[in-house]
């Protein structure tokens, strides 16, 4: 039994940290925020060259063949500086292809994801905003060997940057998953302005889009896959959120050391320092749940649903509190556009609903326990 990171994982963390500090400092993040898809193709290809896009792709398909624990290390560090990129979306598409793709689909898509020439994303949710199979109402008509999709998927992450969508739908009263290319006839997208401008989402419209047998992700039951992808999504979001939450606390700790009022740094006052101490405890507690959950993805899959829910429920509430408190502890400058702390507040608003808010996961934890 060992709850520590390996030396290689520590190296990876250092390397990502240096890269993010050098290549994606907050002024650059603020620039990318103003672009159409909050995505920098140059940054993306640099990350591909470093092998990070293919971290979860096996070596036979041109990847590094590493684990979700490694990927969590990467996401903590990119999340720490709010680096905008379709990293999480693509990793979830990789997971979909790895787990449910045919050998031909894997041979086609995995190397493309790893080398950065394709960006993938999930299209599971619909306008009803219901997680899981229950939320999937998009129906396909059957025409010969093809499924014809007519309808919309909502809240699709990185909708503008994506080259391929993992679409969930119903066909003949059974759920199904398929890969739909952004350039396929009948596919259109609508970007929606986001509160957290480092994150992008929108609507995917499907008008008579034809899905052939070669597009379907059918090696594993769709119901199982939707649940797995949502759990992996919850773990990924928690990892990014953890890095961001730690950085929000660090920025505020620094502010509390520098800002002098009533003749003393405000960090001396218990009304300030106790809240920061609680934030640190929340971040540390999240790590414990997150790392176990990430390990479970590859090593103890029957435990994954519970741990994904434990971790996401914890961070959703904790980061919400941290975002609110950190802005408040900054005083008036916390309410300005200039100070970076507002970016973390907005990220906390993005994190909360993503792959289930805390009430969703608390209900699920009770259900998993058959209460």
């Amino acid at each position, binding site marked *: *039994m060992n*709850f*520590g990171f390996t030396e290689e994982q520590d190296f990876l963390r250092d390397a990502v940290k240096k890269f993010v500090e050098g290549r994606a400092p907050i002024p650059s993040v603020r620039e990318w925020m103003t672009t159409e898809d909050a995505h920098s193709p140059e940054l993306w290809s640099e990350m591909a060259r470093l092998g990070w896009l293919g971290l979860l792709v096996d070596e036979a398909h041109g990847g590094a063949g590493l684990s979700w624990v490694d990927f969590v290390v990467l996401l903590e560090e990119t999340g720490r500086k709010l680096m905008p990129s379709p990293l999480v979306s693509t990793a979830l598409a990789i997971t979909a292809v790895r787990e449910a793709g045919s050998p031909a689909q894997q041979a086609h898509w995995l190397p493309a994801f790893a080398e950065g020439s394709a960006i993938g994303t999930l299209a599971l949710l619909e306008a009803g905003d219901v997680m899981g199979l229950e939320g999937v109402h998009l129906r396909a008509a059957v025409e010969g060997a093809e499924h014809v999709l007519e309808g919309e998927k909502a809240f699709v992450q990185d909708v503008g940057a994506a080259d391929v969508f993992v679409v969930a739908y119903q066909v003949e009263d059974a759920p199904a998953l398929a890969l739909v290319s952004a350039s396929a006839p009948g596919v259109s997208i609508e970007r929606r302005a986001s509160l957290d401008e480092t994150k992008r989402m929108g609507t995917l419209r499907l008008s008579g889009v034809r899905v052939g047998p070669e597009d379907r992700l059918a090696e594993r039951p769709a119901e199982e896959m939707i649940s797995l992808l949502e759990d992996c999504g919850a773990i990924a979001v928690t990892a990014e959120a953890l890095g961001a939450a730690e950085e929000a606390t660090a920025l505020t*700790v620094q502010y509390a050391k520098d800002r002098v009022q009533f003749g003393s740094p405000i960090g001396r006052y218990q009304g300030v320092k106790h809240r920061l101490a609680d934030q640190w405890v929340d971040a540390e*507690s999240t790590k414990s749940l997150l790392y176990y959950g990430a390990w479970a993805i590859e090593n103890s899959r029957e435990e994954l649903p519970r741990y994904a829910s434990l971790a996401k*429920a914890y961070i959703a509430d904790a980061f919400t509190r941290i975002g609110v408190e950190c802005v408040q502890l900054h005083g008036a400058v916390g309410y300005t556009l200039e100070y970076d702390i507002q970016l973390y507040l907005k990220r906390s608003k993005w994190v909360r609903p993503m792959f289930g808010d805390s009430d969703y996961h608390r209900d699920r934890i009770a259900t998993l326990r058959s209460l």
Partner: protein
Amino acid sequence: MDFQLNAEEEAFRTEVRAFLDEHLPDPVPENDADFLERWNRAVREKRWIGFNWPAEYGGGGGDLIRQFILKEEMSARRAPALGTDFMGITWVGPAIITYGSDEQKKAHLEKILDGDTYWCTGYSEPDVGSDLAALQCRAVLEGDEYVINGSKIWTTAAHVASDIFLLVRTDPEVAKWKGITCLLVPMDTPGMEIQPIPNLSGKASFNQVFFNDVRTPASNRLGKEGEGWRVVMKALADERSGISESTEMLQHLDQIRDLAGQSTRNGRPALEDDGVRRRLSEMEIRIEAMRLTGLRHLTDQLQGKPSGSETAINKLQRGLLEFEMSELTLELLGTAAQTQGPLQHEALAWHGTVIGGGSPNIQRNIVAERILGLPKD
């Protein structure tokens, strides 16, 4: 990162389970003195009391991972505690192992494990609580004896204890934390007077202890003179990690789930109430976080990394949790929460546990100052 147990560890888990099958009835008997005596004898024979103490002192000589497995299995079956002398096992014994003389080890360690002693701890004084280093209870060396004068307060279990783990001031001239010494004093020493202080449940749990020219041999000093602060820092870390173990919390949560299973809210089963279900889940989330944080701490210990912060995390988590757990218990009891009963008294007892080893605000100070580097109060 690897949470798989190796074959030997799995074998140990099987051994613990087999032992529990043989020695622990289901349901576990309550208030059954005969059963507890049999239980204590059996776990003592297995050397599972003081499981990680060196074998030469009567302990199990076990490693931290096996100890973790042992505690998890015991908790899952709601087994009684391992050993009766809680303070002796959790911090007094470990302090004697680290700082004690050979004579002290011989005199105390086996007795703690056998349950022949029941230690209490003399830290707080009427004017000294969270600022422990300011303590005033005075001990003066006269020949080969210390003469103790002063008083201790909030001394849990002093009225039933055999010995006291006592902090005294031996040098009032030096910086406050440098003049403190630790003594191991039998409670039947002449000159000690014990006055129980009823707690808010009306029960005697803590006391004020008065020392009037209490004489104790200098050989009862633990560590060197003036080394008391070091001794107590280690003892407090052990106390906090003992308090912050998740196993007891898991048992408590099980009890609340059982209670919820038998309760109704507005005429409907409580377990069908979204509010109740979510609160139970929230407790499960926090306790599981505590359990895994304990495991991370264990890995750090095994790799020889400095420890300390994890105990503050869990101590704080537990402090917040136990109030929520006792409040939910009372709510589930409904109007009957206002009547006298064991669950009602248990809910009140948490108000004492949360202070032991340092209140939540003291833990927050520790985290903010030592870990985040914020200026001291």
